[in-house]
């Protein structure tokens, strides 16, 4: 997406009442490159809600640049798996509240497993970690928020993976954001009520216009989910 389109989309979501925006460059880590940062300042100037930048941040210096341009938070995924101590370094430098760890996970043989380099199907691989172990570890290392992307649900629009999110909620003492599977307003209700997550992330249903954020918020308030109107 070119920068002008990002600004336009960000403005639209701001005006529609999105509570937070995440900017992903999911292809960043696999190709050994980082996101072009010039757009972050332009986003920061027009957004009056929190936003997080994800993709290819592999060092304290890169994180400092992203935060300095006006992002609230940085999200790391594959680089944390390759270099878990990066979480400690980022957390002690910027505080846990800035450090989001994204986890791509799916069910394998009745267990949940973490996957790495999921932005590139040819490089995606099992990281040899159990998801519950990694969730515990990243918290100990100083993650302030976890985004759990349930890969099997991602893009399918049949609902969030409630079983997996509930299992992770049990051991997750920091804010937990559900990702992957949103296709209908009921899916958002279910993930808040059944899995007790702190936030629900979705992309395609909003981009396509299938769900309008104001309608979704009205629905969730009717369902007695406590959210910002």
């Amino acid at each position, binding site marked *: 997406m070119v920068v002008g389109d990002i600004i336009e989309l960000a403005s639209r979501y*701001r005006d529609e009442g999105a*509570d937070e925006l995440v900017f992903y460059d999911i292809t960043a880590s696999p190709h050994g490159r980082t996101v072009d940062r010039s757009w972050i*300042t332009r986003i*920061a*100037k027009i957004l*009056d*809600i*929190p936003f997080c930048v994800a993709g290819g941040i592999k060092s304290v210096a890169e994180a*400092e640049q992203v*935060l*300095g*341009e*006006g*992002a*609230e938070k940085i999200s790391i995924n594959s680089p944390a798996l390759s270099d878990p101590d990066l979480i400690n370094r980022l957390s002690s*430098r*910027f*505080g*846990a*509240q*800035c450090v989001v760890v994204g986890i791509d996970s799916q069910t394998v043989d009745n267990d949940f497993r973490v996957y790495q380099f999921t932005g590139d199907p040819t490089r995606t691989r099992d990281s040899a970690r159990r998801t519950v172990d990694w969730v515990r570890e990243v918290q100990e290392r100083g993650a*302030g*928020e976890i985004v759990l992307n349930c890969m099997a649900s991602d893009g399918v629009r049949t609902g969030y993976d409630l079983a997996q999110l509930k299992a992770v909620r049990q051991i*997750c*003492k*920091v*804010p*937990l954001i559900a990702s992957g599977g949103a296709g209908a307003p009921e899916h958002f209700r279910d993930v808040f009520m059944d899995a007790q997550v*702190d*936030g629900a992330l979705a992309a395609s249903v909003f981009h396509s216009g299938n769900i309008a954020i104001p309608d979704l918020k009205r629905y969730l308030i009717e369902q007695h989910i406590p*959210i*910002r*109107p």
Partner: protein
Amino acid sequence: MLPSVRLAIIDSGGANIASLRYAIERLGVSSELTTDKTVIRNATHVILPGVGAAADCMGRLERANLVDTILNLQQPFLGICVGMQLLFESSEEGDVDCLGLLPGRVRRFPNRDGLPVPHMGWNNLEIQHPSPLLKNFTEQDYVYYVHSYCAPVSDVTLATTYYGEHFSAIVQHENIFGAQCHPERSAKSGALLLQNFLSIL
């Protein structure tokens, strides 16, 4: 809109002070990010932002030799997030003595009822006392929080927020104001809070 405002933002060293400056710009006000005592003393309004640990922030103010300057400010002075926490006597975070402009000790959220810490997200304000800072605010106004520590409710509390317990969301004593939320990331409610602060004479 606010033509006579000369705003000094104390450079407390946080990595993301930019977002506060942009929020001020959106109000049509320019600001100076500074550790210069003269600029701070001569400002009509002063904001102390804060990101990171209380002890680190206090350390930076001490090394910049700014504590006396801050203690003697007569103009409207607003602490935001950790900047608000520093206004109190002490903080449990790093067990550090703070500025002592407001009574009480800042404590960590107890993880009560399994509530996640940090407290992160949007909550409304429960207004306890009217103030120019809360002009035109209603309890339908939601603000954005990211914090693990909070200030107790006391005589200086103007508004509270509930997260497992009530904590001081907005405080004031004379010219000293504090906001635990991030007004720069609190949409229209945050802009109203900053606008109200800059309108205080």
